[in-house]
């Protein structure tokens, strides 16, 4: 009996070892990029223009481009995803139509990012003639993160207890008044934090914007939504693989990677932090 217990313990330790090796790997990636990236970061790097095709200078246009794409994506995907979730949780009945919507959401979540790129190229860039632009890129990214926002928003809406709705309806409020005044205010923090995760994904994606929005080098900053932009992930990709002196400009690459990682993981941390706070604040 005793030897069986020790055997069990050994196996549990092995399982622990395997799980923590994943943790170690993540920590290694983060530390490697942090330690090599930090020396490259300077005020000039963050606010300057790239020089000598990215070998020197800064990455400001790429940071700005990524932020513009993210803002555009949020502006399109957030309201649409939230309305879609409101429909699914508050209005939709069990029907073939609802099931088809759910199936479509799952399918959409599984579409490879490069296929979104092809789709955005075909629809927004060519057919609607937006050209390679902020508009086309944001719309493509918005389609991509829509499922994440819908699913997150649905969960937040479902977490609001039924009696909050029943009380309001019993007092004579209409369905929409109930949703608008008695459900949304409580679900909103959850909807937003869940959506931030999707937004982080949009900021880090390269493949879709490769075909719909990004350029490696632009002499001027964009002035309208129909302009091409530089973007952090694309900038890093070119510096690391296409640049003739890729080995020599390693610090620039690490610096760009760190800024991108900071942006994306920073967003994730904000979401996790908010989630913990919201959970503590609202208890039913």
């Amino acid at each position, binding site marked *: 009996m005793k030897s069986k217990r020790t055997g069990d313990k050994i196996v549990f330790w092995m399982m622990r070892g395997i799980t923590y090796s994943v943790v170690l790997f993540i920590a290694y990636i983060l530390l490697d990029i942090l330690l090599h990236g930090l020396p490259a970061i300077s005020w000039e790097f963050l606010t300057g223009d790239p020089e000598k095709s990215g070998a020197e200078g800064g990455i400001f246009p790429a940071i700005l481009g990524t932020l513009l794409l993210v803002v555009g994506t949020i502006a399109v995907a957030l309201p649409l995803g939230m309305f879609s979730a409101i429909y699914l949780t508050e209005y*939709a009945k069990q029907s073939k139509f609802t099931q088809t919507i759910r199936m479509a959401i799952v*399918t959409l979540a599984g579409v490879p990012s*490069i296929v979104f790129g092809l789709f955005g190229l075909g629809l927004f860039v060519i057919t609607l003639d937006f050209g390679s632009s902020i508009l086309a890129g944001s719309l493509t990214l918005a389609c991509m993160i829509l499922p994440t926002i819908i699913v997150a928003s649905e969960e937040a809406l479902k977490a609001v207890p039924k009696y909050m709705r029943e009380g309001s309806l019993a007092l004579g409020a209409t369905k929409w008044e109930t949703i608008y005044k008695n459900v949304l205010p409580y679900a909103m923090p959850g909807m937003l934090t869940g959506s931030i995760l999707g937004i982080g994904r949009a900021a880090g994606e390269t493949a879709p914007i490769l075909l719909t929005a990004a350029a490696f080098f632009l002499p001027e900053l964009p002035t309208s939504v129909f302009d091409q932009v530089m973007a952090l992930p694309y900038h890093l990709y070119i510096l690391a693989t296409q640049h003739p002196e890729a080995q020599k400009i390693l610090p620039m690459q690490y610096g760009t990677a760190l800024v991108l990682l900071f942006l994306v993981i920073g967003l994730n941390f904000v979401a996790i932090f908010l989630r913990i706070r919201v959970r503590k604040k609202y208890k039913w």
Partner: protein
Amino acid sequence: MNKQRLKAKIIKYFLQSCGSLSIIIILLIFLFLFKEALPFIGSPGLNELFHSIWNPVSFQKEEFGLYPLITGSILVTVLATIIAIPFGIIGAVYISEVATPGEREFLKPFIEILAGIPSVVLGFFGLVVIAPLVKDIFGLNTGLTALTGSILLAFMAIPTIMSISEDAIKSVPSAYKEASLALGASKLETIWKVVVPAALSGIVASVMLGMGRVVGETMTVMMVTGNAPVISMNPFTSVRTMTATIAAEMGEVTFGSHHYMALFWVGIVLMLMTFLLNMVSYRVLKKYGMIDK
């Protein structure tokens, strides 16, 4: 009263149309993939896709055989899955059955971070850290191989496999566990002989979802697999996946050319592969009540 009813109706229809947006986007994706790809059937003909040389830019004869790209994707995906399975499943079992609540609070969000690392950053890390390692360990001429890509992709699949397997394990009724323990089985025996088998279909579904992610991954594979369009099942050679082909070549192609259309066919094959993987795992998860109907 009537006005109010009208307003309610308008709101309902508005929300409904937002709700159906996902269906519309899926249909549009298929529509536009086929719209751009279709003229290929007339000339040079669909047959051109079914052979083993991909050489779309050539002065003599352009070749659009998809086989090397498909085998490239399959090789990388299968290897990545084999690497990811032990970590993903054992990790899920550990987190849900063995870890203390405090450990769980730390492990879950930390592994979520892995899912959040942009693929281009992971590819960059692979290029400067993993590829040289692979080169040295196996004594190769270049570290840019299918294996290098698979190692990195495995780590992209692990968070998916872990979190969905964990849900599957959690949904096993605790009565099973209690019965097994009451019959004198140890905790370890209960986990591997009762809990895991009961959750198996959910675990399989999680692996398939992970594979779906890996097949569709673009930037990481493009940066570290060396991009040689050859048919090979040797993990130490360079391969080129479908995703990397589209991403690398679409930028330089003339709109409407045969090459352009061929790339859209690559997209269609890719879309169908992921669609299939996702649908099967969706069915399985739904059957076990892990997705609301």
